[in-house]
């Protein structure tokens, strides 16, 4: 858990900034409370004096922080999967001229380090292969329905077809998968893993069996046994099955029908090769693209991030608007809500500020008192809203159930707690700075001349 939080903070500038701001707010708040406990209590009492206003302001900040947490979770996730990670840099080989990509299964052998057909260009002068077997995997996609008369989301299952031993080393976010599940997959050809949403929509549990009528490989109908569930999160609506079971089904089809399936040589969709860095990507990518073995098929080599980027192109404008219009707009609204509430309280309490100055409080102390009240409300409301959003969505649905293409759910990262704290703090600061400055600048003689 702590490793994951550290990775979220260190790997994203927004998370890092939010954490710094959040920690600064906590440290500054603690220092203020410890050094001026009575003044802090005065601030709390001031907030309590108009409980309805404080509650409504907190609620407004909380609702906006809740919405921003949801929006930013989606933006964060999409940014994350489009970033080319230096530690997990992958080449994706696809067929250039068709969507989905369809490559002959035999062509994977040219890139498979375990295959005797492995391209000699991918071996260096010392006889060492440029990547190992654990850095290579093939992908196929198999979809089917449990009810051929009702092809609907709740009867459809969409499988990632792969070798079980490749799940942990190669699949994103499945590095922590229980090895027992991989073993269960290896022991049973019909084994499959399903995401939580799929289990629910099929009304199945681990141990149950089901049959599928294929929707993308007509005539390749398969039976499965559920041996485990995929972890909560991005795979909630997904499923994983064995590559050899899939391949054998085509052999069986040929035996039963005395002819090959029409898609028998087009059933490999993707090839993944993990490489060390960009230089190795360019080197291996160049070899693959220029290899005469692949020339007739015109394969395309790209990174995972660029592939996902192409896929997300259709959502580009909406994601841009969410990031640069909706979120800033909501932050502005939060600041205005706070500015309005604090302006009213300062106007109501002008004579009190004047009295405090008469008693010896410096303008800066008056400024800090007002600022502290605003930031206290903003930070607490933001933190609670983000915490509630995190707990509610992650516990109930494994994340925000907002489907974009292959991504059915967006798990709210732990760093979101810091987003809430930071945006609450920042918007409260921005919104209350001017009213607090007005309080700081109250001219005692003018206030009392008006009172008298």
């Amino acid at each position, binding site marked *: 858990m702590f490793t994951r939080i550290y990775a979220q903070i260190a790997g994203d500038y927004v998370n890092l900034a939010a954490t710094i701001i959040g920690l600064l707010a906590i440290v500054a708040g603690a220092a203020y409370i410890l050094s*001026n406990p*009575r*003044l802090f209590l*005065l601030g709390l*009492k*001031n907030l*309590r*004096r108009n409980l309805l206003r404080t509650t409504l302001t907190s609620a407004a900040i909380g609702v906006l922080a809740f919405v921003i947490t949801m929006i930013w979770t989606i933006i964060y996730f999409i940014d994350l999967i489009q970033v080319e990670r230096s530690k997990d840099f992958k080449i994706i080989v696809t067929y250039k001229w068709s969507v989905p990509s369809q490559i002959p299964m035999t062509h994977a052998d040219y890139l498979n380090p375990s295959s005797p057909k492995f391209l000699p260009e991918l071996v260096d002068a010392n006889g060492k292969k440029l990547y190992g077997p654990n850095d290579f995997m093939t992908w196929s996609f198999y979809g089917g329905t449990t009810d051929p008369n009702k092809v609907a989301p709740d009867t459809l299952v969409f499988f990632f077809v792969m070798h079980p031993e490749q799940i942990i080393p190669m699949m994103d976010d499945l590095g922590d998968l229980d090895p027992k599940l991989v073993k269960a997959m290896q022991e049973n050809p019909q084994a499959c893993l399903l995401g939580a949403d799929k289990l629910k929509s099929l009304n199945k549990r681990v141990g149950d069996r089901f049959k599928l009528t294929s929707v993308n490989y007509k005539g390749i109908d398969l039976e499965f046994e559920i041996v485990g569930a995929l972890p909560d999160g991005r795979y909630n609506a997904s499923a994983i099955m064995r590559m050899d079971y899939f391949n054998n089904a085509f052999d069986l089809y040929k035996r039963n029908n005395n002819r090959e399936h029409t898609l028998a040589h087009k059933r490999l969709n993707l090839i993944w090769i993990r490489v060390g860095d960009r230089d190795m990507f360019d080197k291996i990518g160049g070899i693959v693209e220029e290899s005469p073995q692949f020339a007739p098929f015109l394969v395309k080599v790209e990174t995972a991030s660029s592939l996902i980027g192409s896929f997300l192109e259709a959502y580009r404008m909406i994601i841009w608007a969410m990031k640069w219009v909706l979120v800033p707009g909501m932050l502005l609204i939060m600041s205005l809500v706070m500015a309005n509430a604090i302006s009213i309280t300062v106007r109501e309490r002008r*004579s*009190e500020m*004047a*009295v*405090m*100055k*008469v*008693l*010896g*409080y*410096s*303008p*800066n*102390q008056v400024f800090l008192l007002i600022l502290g009240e605003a930031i206290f409300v903003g930070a607490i409301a933001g933190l609670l809203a983000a915490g509630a959003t995190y707990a509610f969505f992650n516990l109930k649905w494994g994340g925000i159930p907002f489907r974009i293409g292959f991504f059915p759910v967006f798990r709210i990262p732990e760093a979101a707690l810091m987003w809430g704290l930071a945006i609450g703090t920042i918007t409260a600061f921005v919104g209350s700075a001017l009213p607090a400055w007005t309080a700081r600048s109250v*001219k*005692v*003689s003018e206030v*009392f*001349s008006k*009172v*008298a």
Partner: protein
Amino acid sequence: MAAPILNLHNITKSFTRGGEEITVLRNLNLQVAEGEFLGIMGPSGSGKTTMLNLIAGLDKPNRGEVWIGGQCVSTMSESQLASWRTRSIGFIFQFYHLLPVLTAYENVELPLLLLPLSSAKRRQQVLNVLDLVGLTDRMHHRPGQLSGGQQQRVGIARAIVTDPTLIVADEPTGDLDARSAVEILNLMGELQKGLNKTILLVTHDPRAAERAQRIVHLEKGQLLESAEMEAAGLLNDGAGSNAIQASEPRTK
């Protein structure tokens, strides 16, 4: 006269209102000895509050100097003034100006939070002054739960809790009924006599002014002693009871 604890030297203060400059105080001079109870009278708009604001460092003169306890107040920065006010000035307001969210105890404690005192010492000082003003049994009440006279007692306790050099009272009985006003004036008299406090009392009320050892009148931006007023025919009796009627509006 003992060494002056307050010295106003050639003070001039003017304001600009609607493009017109109004001179409220003109070359004003005043000396107040330590432990003296000074009454300041004058008609509305004569500049009494302006003078108090200058003395308390809440405003600055256009010309002249304000010296209190050997320090020149009129040249201090705002932060210096804030710190100086905590220790040197106790302010009693006509409308009490207590913080409504705080109890009597907490209101009195407020200026002490600025001083480097232990919480035990702070508590002791607050209880002492609340005892002095006779409000120990009401110390956990909020201002809204106290009568006007009691609120003003809290105001007085707050003004004296830091043991200031000077206590400045601006119409402290102006919002009170006759009985409460007498109680407050008695209390101020006790403070002056018992604790040897220097008190400046601004008032319209001749009966309040009678409690002072010396009365000065603010007229046309300048101060006149009662005797001078009498000589000028501005007072009908020695106590200055008709001074209000005799006064003129603000000078220009």
